[in-house]
């Protein structure tokens, strides 16, 4: 097993006595009671484990968990003896999942959609974000969060009212914004900094539609991006290069630069071997050296237009030196690792390394240059 840098799941046998769901993890009893989620008091070695399970407060003993959290983190108890820390003050990035439903079927979806109704997740996520009350950005992902329509508008209102310091980064396929009025409605509710990360994979409809497994998706997302941008919604445009869209990368960026407004950043992301991407790896993954020229041209165009561009999830040794300034050390801290070969590498402090999910057939070797 390759060690990821930060662990987020903890086996706590006595947690199967705690009702499943989201809890505020406390190291000491809060002076004002938690209101949006119930309190789970975590005790470690040397803490007084005498607190009662009175009222809504449950207590578990786990020195390991105790040492891994800060007071006020949010954990998800699965009812089968484990606790996953979903919002952590020690993480470099936190994300909440609001639904597993989606109107796309991306060949590389890391969170393969399920059709069952999971409406309860949205308000649970709101409660988690509000309880956490952080002042960093929290990722909101799915599935497709905007499938909630009006309920999503209420989610925005509630979160922004009760956690005004928390910024949101919403990952959406953007199709819902094809409805101009919905885009406007969302725009009107943006108070704290909220950015929508919206992927577009091709200038050509057929290529995008194939990659996302949905006919008509391209037309929706293109119109969605236009409407959202015109309505004033800040957008991060996300592009994942694969074997199927290499010809599209440069034209896609031109489309973005010429036609979309409100772009804050373009993010080019190396394919991550999780979810369906693992099953389709052979027909999707593309060695970055095969599209280094396209990346260079994209970086040039974006820079010339004054639009920030960043390359995510690329081990530095997989990119030409000239692109290193745009590579971002980005893989979430519980997802990355450095194989042994990296140990002598001088670029390691700036390098994001590899996904801990890239093992076996999914692993691309580091290429030590110096």
């Amino acid at each position, binding site marked *: 097993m390759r060690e990821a840098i930060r662990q987020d799941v903890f086996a706590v046998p006595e947690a199967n006595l705690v009702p499943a769901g989201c809890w505020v993890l406390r190291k000491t009893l809060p002076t004002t009671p938690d209101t949006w989620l119930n309190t789970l008091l975590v005790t470690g070695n040397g803490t007084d484990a005498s607190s009662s399970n009175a009222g809504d407060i449950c207590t578990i003993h786990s020195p390991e968990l105790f040492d891994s959290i800060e007071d006020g983190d949010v954990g998800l108890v699965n009812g089968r003896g484990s606790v996953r820390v979903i919002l952590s003050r020690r993480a470099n990035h936190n994300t909440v999942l609001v639904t597993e439903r989606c109107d796309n079927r991306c060949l590389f979806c890391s969170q393969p959609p399920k059709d069952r109704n999971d409406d309860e997740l949205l308000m649970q996520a709101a409660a988690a974000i509000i309880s956490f009350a952080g002042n960093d950005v929290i990722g909101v992902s799915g599935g497709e969060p905007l499938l909630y329509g009006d309920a999503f508008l209420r989610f925005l209102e509630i979160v922004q009212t009760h956690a005004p310091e928390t910024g949101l980064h919403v990952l959406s396929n953007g199709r819902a914004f094809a409805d101009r009025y919905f885009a406007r409605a969302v*725009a009107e509710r943006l108070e704290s900094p909220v950015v929508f990360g919206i992927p577009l994979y091709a200038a050509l409809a057929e290529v995008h539609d194939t990659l996302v497994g949905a006919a008509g998706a391209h037309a929706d997302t293109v119109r969605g991006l*236009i409407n959202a941008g*015109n*309505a*004033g919604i800040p957008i991060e445009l996300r592009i994942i290069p694969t074997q199927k869209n290499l010809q599209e990368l440069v034209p896609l960026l031109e489309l973005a630069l010429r036609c979309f*407004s409100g772009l804050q950043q373009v993010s080019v992301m190396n394919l991550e071997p999780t979810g369906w991407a693992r099953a389709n790896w052979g027909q999707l993954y593309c060695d970055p050296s095969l599209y280094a020229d396209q990346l260079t041209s994209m970086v040039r165009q974006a820079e010339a237009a004054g639009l920030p561009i960043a390359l995510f999830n690329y081990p530095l040794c997989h990119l030409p030196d000239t692109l290193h300034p745009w590579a971002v050390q980005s893989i979430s801290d519980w997802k990355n690792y450095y194989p042994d070969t990296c140990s002598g590498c001088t670029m390691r402090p700036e390098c994001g390394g590899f996904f801990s999910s890239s093992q076996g057939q999914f692993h691309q070797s580091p290429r030590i240059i110096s």
Partner: protein
Amino acid sequence: MRYLDKERYSEWVVRQALYWLTPTTRWRLDETENQWAVALDDDSYSAQAELDRLLNDFLLRERIGRRTETTRSAIADAVIRSIQQRLSES
């Protein structure tokens, strides 16, 4: 004098071509029932060739334009909407 069939050359094509012929030569346009009659002050081969080139290109523009007429107006509407929206945002 050049005679151009009205069947083939619309008034738009002829007028556009002549507009851009002005730097090459002065011209006069008359018409009969079925034809346009174009008189060029400079009747040289190169002026005639320039007129032909212009007529040809405007015929092409006209034919392509006809296929996209409705989208052109759809775009105009959308532009106005989008500019209005931008202005109301800023």
